[in-house]
C-alpha cells in the first residue's frame, strides 16, 4: 500500500475541547488500509480523545465541542462524519473501537457477538450464525469457543476476551479499527498473539492504535504519530523505526 492510494480516513484541522478546555489542537492525519498507524504520547496528550473523535464517541461525554473534519471513504462514497454523511450509529459501526480493558458484557459468548448484529442490523437466523462463526474464525477464536458459546464471556481469559471484542467489531463489517492500548492488560504471550492477529487484519482494515509499549510500537507500526499536548508533534516512517538510537531518543523525549 502506498501513500498514493486514497486514504480511508482523512482527519483535517480537528480540534476537540471539553468544557472549553482544548484537548486536541488542529490535528491532521490520514489512515490507509494495509497500514497500522500507532499513536504514542505521554498521558493526557489526547491519544484516546483522538481515537474517539474518529467515531464520534467523544459526544457521549458532556460539554464536548469538536471542530474540523473527519472524512470517511466507504464503498466509493466519501463525506465528513460530522456533517450528516452517515447516521451516527452507522459511523460507529463502520469505525470500530477496541478498548484498553476487554469490554465483554456479562452475557454469554454468543450473545456478546449477536446482540449488536441483531439490534443494529436486524440480522437473525443462519445469516447471524454465519457472521458469528466467520468473525470468530477471523480472530482465531472459533476452535477455542465453538463448544461453549453459551458460557459466560467473563469465563474467557483476558486474551480471549480481547479477541472476542475484536470479533464482535469485525462481525459488524467495519472499514477502520481504532485500538486503544488493546494489549495493555495482557501478558507477553497473549500480547504476541494479538499482535499477530493485527498484522493479519491490517490487510483488510485501516488501523489506528495507541500503544505505550516501545517494543510493541517497533514490532507493529508502519507509521508512528507522536502526539504532544494535543498536537501531532512528529511523524515517523518505517525507516526511522529501524534507526534504534534515533527512535529511542525520540521516545525518551516523548515519555
Amino acid at each position, binding site marked *: 500500500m502506498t501513500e498514493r492510494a486514497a486514504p480511508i480516513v482523512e482527519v483535517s484541522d480537528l480540534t476537540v475541547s471539553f468544557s472549553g478546555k482544548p484537548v486536541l489542537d488542529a490535528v491532521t492525519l490520514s489512515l490507509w488500509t494495509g497500514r497500522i498507524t500507532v499513536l504514542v504520547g505521554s498521558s493526557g496528550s489526547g491519544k484516546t480523545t483522538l481515537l474517539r473523535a474518529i467515531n464520534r464517541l467523544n459526544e457521549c461525554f458532556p460539554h464536548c465541542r469538536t471542530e474540523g473534519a473527519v472524512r470517511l471513504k466507504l464503498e466509493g462514497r466519501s463525506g465528513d462524519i460530522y456533517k450528516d454523511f452517515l447516521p451516527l450509529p452507522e459511523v460507529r459501526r463502520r469505525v470500530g473501537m477496541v478498548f484498553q480493558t476487554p*469490554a465483554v458484557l456479562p452475557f454469554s459468548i454468543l450473545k456478546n457477538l449477536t446482540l449488536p448484529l441483531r439490534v443494529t442490523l436486524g440480522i437473525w437466523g443462519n445469516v447471524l450464525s454465519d457472521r458469528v462463526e466467520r468473525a470468530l474464525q477471523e480472530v482465531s477464536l472459533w476452535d477455542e469457543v465453538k463448544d461453549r458459546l453459551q458460557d459466560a464471556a467473563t469465563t474467557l481469559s483476558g486474551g480471549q476476551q480481547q479477541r472476542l471484542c475484536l470479533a464482535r467489531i469485525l462481525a459488524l463489517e467495519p472499514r477502520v479499527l481504532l485500538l486503544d492500548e488493546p494489549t495493555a492488560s495482557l501478558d507477553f504471550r497473549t500480547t504476541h498473539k494479538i499482535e499477530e492477529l493485527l498484522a493479519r487484519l491490517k490487510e483488510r482494515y485501516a488501523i489506528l492504535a495507541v500503544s505505550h509499549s516501545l517494543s510493541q510500537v517497533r514490532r507493529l507500526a508502519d507509521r508512528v504519530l507522536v502526539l504532544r499536548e494535543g498536537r501531532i508533534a512528529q511523524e515517523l516512517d518505517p525507516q526511522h523505526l529501524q534507526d534504534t538510537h534515533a527512535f529511542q531518543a525520540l521516545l525518551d523525549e516523548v515519555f
Partner: protein
Amino acid sequence: MQKTLDRLLTCLAWLSGGGTLLAVSLLLVFLASHGMPGIDAALFFGDTPWLDALLARKPIFGGIWPALVGTFSLVFLASVFSIPLGIASGIYLAEYASDHRHSLLDFMVDLLSGTPSIVMGLFGFTAILALRKTFLPGARTGLLLAGLCIGLLVLPYVIRTTESALEGIPDHLRLLGPSLGLTRWQNINKVLLPLAGRGILSGAILAVGRAAEDTAVILLTGVVAHAGIPGSLADKFEALPFRIYYLAAEHRSPQELEQGFATALVLLLLTGLLFLAAVLLQRSVERRWKTR
C-alpha cells in the same frame, strides 16, 4: 499505633456485623415464639370455613384474611405505580437530564424521600376533599387512593437505586453500546438496564417492603378495622400493619394480643415471600438477558 487502630477497627466492624445479626435474630425469635402459637386457620378465617372464605361465599369475622388481601392489593397497586415510574425517572436522571434539570430533580426527589408518611396520607386525604368539591363529588378514600399515596411514598427508593445503579456502570461498558453502533435508547435498553438489573431490583425490594409495612398513609386514605375483602378499587379495606397496630393498642384479651403477634409474623412472612418472588423473577430475567 497503626496496628492497634487497625485491630480496633476490625473489631468494631465484626461487632457491628454481629450486632445486626443478633438484633435481627432476637427479633425473629421473639416474634416467632409469641406469634407461632397463634397461627392456625382461625387466625386467617375466624369461624368461617376456609373454602367459603377463599371463594368469598361467606363473610369473615375476626380473621386476618381480608387484611392479608388488602395488604397484598396495596403492595401490588403501589408497585404498579411506583416501580415503572421510578425506573423511568431513574433512567432520565442518569442518562438524559442536563446538569440544571438533574440538580432540580435531585432536590425534588430528596424532598419526596424526606416527606413523613403521615404527611403523604394528609396529602391523599386533602386531594380527595379537593376532588369532592370540584370534579368528583362522589370521590372517597379507598384502596386506589391509598395505593397511589404509598406508591408516591416509595417512589424515591426506586428512582435513587435505578439512578445509582446506572451511574455505577464503568465507562468502558457504558461506551460499549454506542461504540458498536447502538442508539442511545438501544444502549440503555439492551446493555445498561441488564447491567444495572441487580441494583434496580434492590430498589424494588425496598419499595415493596416499605409499601407492605406503612400504617400512617393508609390511616388517612381508607383503611378501617373491619371492611372485609374490598370489592373494587374505591372500597375501604383492611391491612395487616393497621390490624397489628389496632390489636396492640386496643386488645381486650391475651388471645387478641397473641393474634397481634401472629399477624406480625404473617406480615413478615408475606414480605419475605414477596422478596423471594422478586429475586426469582430477577434471576429468570437475568438468565434470559445473559443468553438470548
